[in-house]
C-alpha cells in the first residue's frame, strides 16, 4: 500500500512539474521593455560564429527579426530598406535574427548571399530570443542605445501595405537620426506589421 502511495505521489508531482514546464516554454516572459536594459543573448550566425549582445557594449544596436519566406520581408529586401539603413548608419551594429522554427543556418546563408548582406543573420530557430523580446512579426525592429537601453520597438515604417513606396515614414531611420543628434526618440513604440513569427508550437 505504501509503495502505491509513494508512486502516486511521485507521479502527481511529476505531472505538476511537467505542466509547469509546458507553461514556461509557451508563455516565456517578455523581458524586453522600453527604457529598460535590453535582454542579453548569445546565438550563432549563419556561419556558426558566436554573437552576443554583450559584444557590443558602447555601441548602438539594431535588431531586425526576419523570415525569408515572408512577403513583407521579401518586399523590403527587394526595396533595400534595411540594407540602405545599415549602410547609412555605419556606426550602428545591425543584426538580423531568424526565429522561424523550420529554418536553418543554410537558409540564412542563402539569404545573406542573395542580398550580399554586410550584417549577420543569427539562428534563433528554437525561438527563445524571439520570445524574450516579444518579437511578433517579420519584420519587427528593436533599437538599443549605447548604454544598452531599449529605445525603440515596432514597425520598420508606417506602410504595412507597401503602397507609399518611397514616401513611407521609416521609424528606424527617424529614431537613429534623433539618437545621433543627441535627442530622445519621439516615436519609441509603434505597432509592428508583417507575417507572424513562426515559432515552434
Amino acid at each position, binding site marked *: 500500500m505504501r509503495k502505491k502511495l509513494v508512486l502516486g505521489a511521485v507521479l502527481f508531482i511529476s505531472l505538476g512539474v511537467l505542466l509547469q514546464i509546458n507553461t514556461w516554454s509557451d508563455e516565456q516572459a517578455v523581458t524586453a521593455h522600453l527604457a529598460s536594459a535590453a535582454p542579453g543573448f548569445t546565438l550563432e550566425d549563419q556561419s556558426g560564429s558566436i554573437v552576443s549582445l554583450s559584444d557590443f557594449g558602447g555601441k548602438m544596436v539594431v535588431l531586425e527579426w526576419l523570415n525569408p519566406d515572408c*512577403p513583407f520581408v521579401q518586399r523590403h529586401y527587394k526595396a533595400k530598406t534595411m540594407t540602405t539603413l545599415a549602410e547609412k548608419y555605419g556606426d550602428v551594429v545591425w543584426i538580423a535574427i531568424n526565429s522561424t522554427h523550420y529554418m536553418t543556418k543554410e537558409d540564412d546563408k542563402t539569404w545573406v548571399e542573395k542580398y550580399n548582406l554586410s550584417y549577420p543573420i543569427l539562428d534563433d530557430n528554437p525561438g527563445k530570443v524571439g520570445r524574450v523580446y*516579444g518579437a*511578433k512579426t517579420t519584420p519587427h525592429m528593436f533599437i538599443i542605445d549605447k548604454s544598452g537601453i531599449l529605445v525603440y520597438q515596432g514597425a520598420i515604417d508606417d506602410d504595412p*501595405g507597401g503602397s507609399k513606396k518611397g514616401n513611407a515614414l521609416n521609424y528606424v531611420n527617424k529614431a537613429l537620426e534623433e539618437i545621433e543628434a543627441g535627442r530622445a526618440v519621439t516615436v519609441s513604440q*509603434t505597432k509592428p506589421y508583417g507575417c507572424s513569427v513562426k515559432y515552434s508550437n
Partner: protein
Amino acid sequence: MHWLFVLLYLFTFTFSVRGEELPKSVQAELLANVAKIKAGDAFMVGVLLKIDTGWHIYWKNSGDTGLPTSLSLTFPDGFRAGPVLWPVPVSFSRSGGIIDYGYEKSVMLLSEVEAPSKLSHGSAIPVNAEVSWVSCEEICIPGGSNLEVTLPVGESTQSANERLFNEWEKRLPVDADSLNSPFLARIKTNAGSQDKSLNFTISLDWSLTPADVEWFPVAGRFFDVRNILVRTKGRQGIITFTAQLLPGQNLHSNVLETVVAYTNSKGERSGVTLPIQLEKANNPYN
C-alpha cells in the same frame, strides 16, 4: 509562318503570369442581392471570399500580425455606397503570444448601396470591386482581385442570391444600443499605471446565456490594446483591457470601436458592435 507567332505568344504569356508561381489560396466573387436595379432603390453588394482549408485572411483589425483585407467599390455617378460591413471575425492564437483576427473557410464582405432616383431604363450599371488580402497558413501570400459585374436597370427590383446574402447579413454585428442587442453594457474607465494609458471594465448584462464570448477591438496602429480578459458566468460578463496611446502619436478618434462576439442558443456565431468612449474628461491624451 504564323504558328511561330502563336508559339511566341504562348511562351510570353506563361512567363508573364505574376512572377513566381505561388498557390492562390483565396477565390473572390462579386455578387449583388438584386438581378435588376430599380431607380431609387437600396440593394446590397458583396464580395464572397472562399479561403482554402488551413489558410486565413484578416479582419479590419488584423490583430498582432498580418494585414487587414481591403475592399474598394466603385459605382457610376449618383450611386451611394455605404461603408464595408464586416461579419463577426474569429481569433487565431499562435505560439509566441500572437493573436490575430480574421476569417477562415469563407467570408462575404458587404456594402449597402442606394441607386439614384433617375436611371435610364435599359441601361446597364457596372459595379467594380477591388479587393486585396494577405492569406496565411505556414507562410503568408498577398493576393487580390479586380472584379466587375454589370447589373441591368429594371422597372421593378428582382432579388438574387437571397439565401447567400441572408446568411452573411446574419453574421454582421448588431448595434449595442439597438433593440436587437443581447446585452446591456456599462463601461468604467480608470487611469492606467503607465503614462497615457487607461484601464477599462465593461460589464455586460446578457438577456440570454451566451457561449464562447470574445472581444475584438478595432484599434488603429497608433493605439495599443492589451491585457484583454473576457470572463462570463451565466448571464453576467466582464471584459477588462488596457488601452495606451503609443508614444509620439495622436489620437485620431475619441471612440474605440469594438465587437463582442458570442454563440447564441441556436449555435450561431453572432456579434454586437460596442463603441467605447475615450472621454475627454477622463482622457489623459489631452
